[in-house]
């Protein structure tokens, strides 16, 4: 096909990895909006030229490429998807104050909750116990904050559809069975019952269910990752 024609197609590419909870966010958003796309699997130990060209700054996944133009950083990509394809269902609320609150908690999840999971996975013994305690506290703040900021509704869903916050929170948390089996226990059922009830609701949501990384493959991958730190 001629290069000119190629660029004019409504072509959407998503660069991701099978285990990457973050690239999953982009695919879920596109599927929710009914936007067709082509998925490109990356081997992060051997990054493709294309990925390095499309994300020279961070050299990471996910990257969305639309009509040949790349966008990186999952939260930036999600907002782009919502703005460029403003059809229903909307990912973000319309009201500026509500949007600010959604952005705040999405940011909190990525800056605090996800790094906390890595800290647990990379530590051993007493250090790990402390890391789990701290993480559980961060989750408690998330639970309370979301309840307070979005009273009377489950902020992770918007009617029958998953919301922006639901897409963000589903990353990593929805893979907990694999983490559990691999020995990276960060489950805190007693301390964070609300959070885990949200996570289970997300796991039941069809678009999330079908996007979850294959369980056994993820367990092996997590075990291998953790063995680097023991």
């Amino acid at each position, binding site marked *: 096909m001629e290069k000119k024609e190629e660029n004019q197609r409504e072509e959407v590419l998503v660069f991701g990895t099978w285990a990457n909870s973050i690239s999953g966010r982009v695919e879920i958003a596109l599927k929710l909006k009914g936007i067709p796309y082509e998925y490109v699997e990356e081997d992060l130990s051997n990054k493709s030229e294309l990925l390095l060209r499309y994300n020279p*700054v961070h050299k990471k996944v996910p990257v969305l490429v*639309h009509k040949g*133009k790349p*966008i*990186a*950083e999952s*939260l*930036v*990509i999600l*907002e*782009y998807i919502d*703005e*460029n394809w403003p059809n229903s269902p909307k990912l973000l609320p319309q009201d*500026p*104050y509500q*949007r*600010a609150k959604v*952005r*705040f908690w999405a*940011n*909190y999840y990525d800056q605090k909750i996800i790094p906390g999971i890595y800290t647990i996975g990379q530590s051993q013994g007493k250090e790990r116990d402390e890391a789990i305690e701290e993480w559980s506290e961060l989750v408690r*703040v998330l639970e309370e*904050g979301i309840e307070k900021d979005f009273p009377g509704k489950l902020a992770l869903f918007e009617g029958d559809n998953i919301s922006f916050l639901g897409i963000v929170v589903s990353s990593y948390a929805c893979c907990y069975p694999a983490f559990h089996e691999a020995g990276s226990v960060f489950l805190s059922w007693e301390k964070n019952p609300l959070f885990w009830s949200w996570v289970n609701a997300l796991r039941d949501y069809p678009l999330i269910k079908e996007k979850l990384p294959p369980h056994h493959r993820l367990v092996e991958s997590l075990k291998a990752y953790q063995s680097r730190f023991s």
Partner: protein
Amino acid sequence: MADEVVLLDLWSSMFGMRVRVALAEKGVEYEYKEQDLRNKGPLLLEMNPIHKKIPVLIHNGKPICESLIIVQYIDEVWHHKAPLLPSDPYQRAQARFWADYVDKKVYPPGRKIWATKGDEQEEAKKEFIEILKVLEGELGEKPYFGGESFGFVDISFVTFSCWFHVYETFGNFSIEKECPKLMAWVKRCQERESVSKSLPDEKKLLEFVYYLMKIFGIE
């Protein structure tokens, strides 16, 4: 009913300055409340219980936290004047990407340049210059990061410019020499009243850092 806008801030914070610049660009009147971060007042703790940090914008009693989230909020509420983000979705995504880059990358090495010494300081200096060069590359030949208009990315980064004097003094280097185009951009931004009125004097900041070092016992 008139809008009530309050900003909880710290004069030296490059994050707080972003909000000041945005409000000035939009011509929004507000009440500035200087915070004492070593003795946090009840209003700050009530309005930002999670991070207990500044800046916090309080709009008609409702708090908004995190400087870039606040700037986007300001752009969306006072949308009839001086748009800070472009209207095209792809351009908006690029603006958010670069503001996020500034937000995550610039502060940590910058701080290490004055708060550490020896190898750690040298590493931080190298990293800092590298990051500035990436930003200079992104600016290219454009007058502003936003293109022809001053915008979101410009706001997110220009507030570090008053701290350049601190970094240069402690790191013993010249940002003008390393990144001349970036310094030209800084001067261009400083011609805007919203910037010149919102950023403190760079010499005052240097004195402040010396003072901080004394009370924290840093040599």
